[in-house]
């Protein structure tokens, strides 16, 4: 992305406003400015496809975390308000039916942006997935237990990727000093073993997941950190 605005939703809104103002003037401007030669109107109309290119749900918009449907809704609402402003400039009357129509369209836009529609699974299909990292440490490792009552250290959307580092082996299982990569002893000193078992880093919560649902986790890769393992 050539530049970044915060919040990310701002960029599409600004671009849509610019393109819609331009398009509205190009299409309907000649109604107000009848003295402008026809050639000028045609040129302005030809320029409108360029603004359409800017409105397409391309890669920069995807990086803003928007769906094509949301972009389209956003565009329709902005277009209608631009037209309403133009109608005001043209001194066209506005009735209660227009106001109700705008209210209903705005309500439709609200539902398009609600969590009910933009479910996490849809984001996975749309390829909007984030990468997270969770490092093993005294605050993140649980030794011998891993309970659902633990507070999540990370909450992710379905389809996101999480890289988790782990601690291996108890203090009396450490390899000889010749090992080039011994684990950090502070982890073993500060993490308390509560039950017999493994050292687990986490937990990670999946947004929207409910008790009783099946969770599919794909292990994409295993990268070795130490030059030893134990069994």
């Amino acid at each position, binding site marked *: 992305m050539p530049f970044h605005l915060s919040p990310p939703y701002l960029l599409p809104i600004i671009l849509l406003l610019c393109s819609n103002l331009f398009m509205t003037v190009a299409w309907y401007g000649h109604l107000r400015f009848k003295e402008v030669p026809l050639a000028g109107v045609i040129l302005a109309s030809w320029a409108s496809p360029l603004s359409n290119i800017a409105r397409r749900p391309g890669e920069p918009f995807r990086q803003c975390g928007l769906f094509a449907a949301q972009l389209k809704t956003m565009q329709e609402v902005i277009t209608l308000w631009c037209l309403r402003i133009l109608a005001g400039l043209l001194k066209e009357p506005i009735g209660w039916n227009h106001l109700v129509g705008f209210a209903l369209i705005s309500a439709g836009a609200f539902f398009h942006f609600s969590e009910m529609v933009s479910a996490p699974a849809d984001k996975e299909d749309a390829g909007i997935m984030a990468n997270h990292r969770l490092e093993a440490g005294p605050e993140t490792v649980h030794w011998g237990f891993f309970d659902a009552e633990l507070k999540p250290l990370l909450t992710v959307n379905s389809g996101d990727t999480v890289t988790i580092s782990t601690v291996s082996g108890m203090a009396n299982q450490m*390899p000889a000093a010749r090992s080039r990569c011994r684990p950090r002893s502070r982890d073993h000193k500060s993490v308390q073993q509560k039950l017999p078992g493994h050292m687990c880093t986490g937990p990670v919560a999946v947004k929207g997941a409910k008790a009783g649902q099946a969770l599919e986790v794909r*292990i*994409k*890769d*295993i990268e*070795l950190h130490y*030059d*030893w*393992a134990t069994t």
Partner: protein
Amino acid sequence: MIRPLAGALPDDFDTPTLIHIPLDKAKNTGKLPWVSTCRSRPSSA
């Protein structure tokens, strides 16, 4: 730690045994004493 009759066959280990497995980070492999070199990768990959 491999303990007799805890994840091991009856005659494989008589006493609790601790084995260190050398890992090759570049090749992503481990050298287990009872098999040849074992590659570290997800089973589904």
